[in-house]
């Protein structure tokens, strides 16, 4: 990567694949200070559908990486995350989050267990500096080493039911042995010892590979993945499709469904919250909140009347009074519906409850629907 890791907003950052995106004709946008492709000439809808039915590839090198290793790495990771990292086997990953003492979110993370006391966190682009500072500060009393590795990897996501077929052509690792949310290491495109994780942010099967960040290598791997995927109709996909894919799957986005003012209980992410493990940051508040109960909760909405509820739009009750807010809303390309994630009071959170979404001054009807909106079909 061409910029320094701790230079937060002054300079627009570019991934090693920036020139490739431009050559492919991508529309570029500033995303959290990164110059990233939002869509390619095929268009967002085509990209979204490629991932649902075949395969699409994404440059997600803007995501950050932190490694925590050393004698007390496990207790350190247990202290700063809400899931139970002791349950992870070597080669396994888990969805987790780092929390503030209030039980709200520093960031959500994927924790990979490299060794007994060796963990690798994948973190969000927009929270990189905050996260690394948080991890350093809150692991200080443990005997472990914290490394900020965000600029060491070009991270390429190969997503969709045919992702496995594409990547298998390029690696000696037996991908049929790698289950969802597990990882392995292998030779990829001739590069040895590459991290290959069966993870993603599309609500689809897929892999994320972490290759060296120099431009020549990054471009070569990207182009080889595209070439290998040609027979499966692979499309390069931008952040636009990444957002609609994750929205259909109800995957949280930091700054939207989760933030420093939303608790784990409210976000409905308690499936990954392990209250039975030892102390961790946020636990005490979460215990109290569990007793008190929540007043608002994250629900899925589907527009009944014509209109698209967008991020930040107001949610209204039957009298037109604001009762909540849309956190993410869009046309959903696979479902062909207009959907939202929104925080609403419990009184309006039951499936089939009807609310209004304020669109350009009008209350447009929507109803609460079960989530995730999309669940990938089981494949043998």
């Amino acid at each position: 990567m061409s910029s320094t890791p701790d230079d937060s907003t002054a300079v627009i950052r570019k991934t090693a694949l920036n020139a490739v995106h431009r050559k492919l004709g991508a529309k570029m946008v500033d995303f959290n200070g990164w110059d990233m492709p939002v869509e390619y000439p095929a268009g967002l809808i085509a990209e979204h559908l490629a991932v649902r039915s075949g395969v699409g590839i994404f440059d997600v090198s803007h995501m950050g990486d932190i490694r925590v290793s050393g004698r007390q790495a496990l207790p350190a990771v247990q202290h700063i995350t809400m899931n139970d990292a002791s349950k992870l086997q070597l080669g396994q990953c888990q969805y987790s989050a780092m929390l503030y003492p209030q039980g709200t979110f520093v960031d959500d993370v994927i924790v990979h267990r490299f060794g007994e006391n060796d963990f690798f966190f994948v973190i969000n682009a927009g929270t990189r500096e905050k996260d690394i500072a948080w991890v350093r500060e809150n692991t200080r009393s443990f005997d472990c080493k914290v490394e900020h590795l965000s600029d060491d990897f070009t991270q390429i996501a190969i997503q969709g039911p045919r992702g496995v077929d594409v990547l298998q052509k390029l690696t000696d690792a037996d991908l049929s042995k790698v289950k969802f949310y597990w990882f392995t290491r292998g030779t990829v495109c001739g590069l040895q010892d590459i991290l290959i994780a069966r993870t993603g942010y599309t609500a689809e099967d897929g892999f994320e590979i972490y290759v060296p960040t120099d431009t020549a290598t990054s471009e070569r791997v990207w182009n080889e993945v595209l070439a290998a995927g040609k027979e499966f109709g692979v499309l390069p996909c931008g952040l636009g499709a990444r957002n609609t894919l994750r929205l259909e799957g109800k995957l949280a986005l930091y700054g939207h469904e989760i933030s420093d003012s939303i608790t784990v209980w409210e976000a409905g992410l308690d499936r990954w919250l392990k209250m039975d493990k030892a102390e961790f940051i946020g636990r005490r508040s979460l215990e109290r909140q569990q007793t008190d109960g929540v007043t608002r909760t994250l629900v899925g909405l589907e527009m009944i009347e014509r209109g698209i509820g967008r991020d930040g739009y107001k949610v209204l009750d039957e009298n037109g009074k604001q009762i909540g807010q849309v956190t993410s809303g869009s046309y959903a390309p696979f479902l062909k519906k207009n959907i939202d994630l929104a925080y609403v009071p419990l009184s309006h959170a039951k499936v089939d409850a009807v609310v209004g979404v304020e669109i350009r001054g009008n209350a447009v009807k929507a109803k609460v629907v079960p989530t995730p909106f999309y669940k990938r079909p089981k494949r043998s």
Partner: protein
Amino acid sequence: MAYPADLKYTKEHEWIKVEGDTGIIGITDHAQKALGDIVFVELPKPGATLTQGKSLGTVESVKAVSDIYAPASGTVTEVNQELNTAPEKVNADPHGAWMLKVKLSNPGEVKNLLSAADYEKFVAEEDGH
């Protein structure tokens, strides 16, 4: 895509075709490209009054919401209902997929608008080419 010479254009990327005292309104190829996949078009009903330069409705892609500004003043006589169910037609054929037909209240206003050649130049400058 070439910009048809029989249309007039706005700097907000609408086009209008004038036939007698009727104006036919749509958005340009440049607009549809900038928006991406169009999934929603919201237009006024027949009888509504338009004022040149004022918002008449919205067009939404998956990513973005954008106002449509009236290229000329008048009264809406017809709305292209097809765009309710097939908004993607605006992407496929921007200068054919009309949105509104309007009875112009002041046909002279159209003189303020850009010719195809001038609009093309304007768009090229906006793109920094």
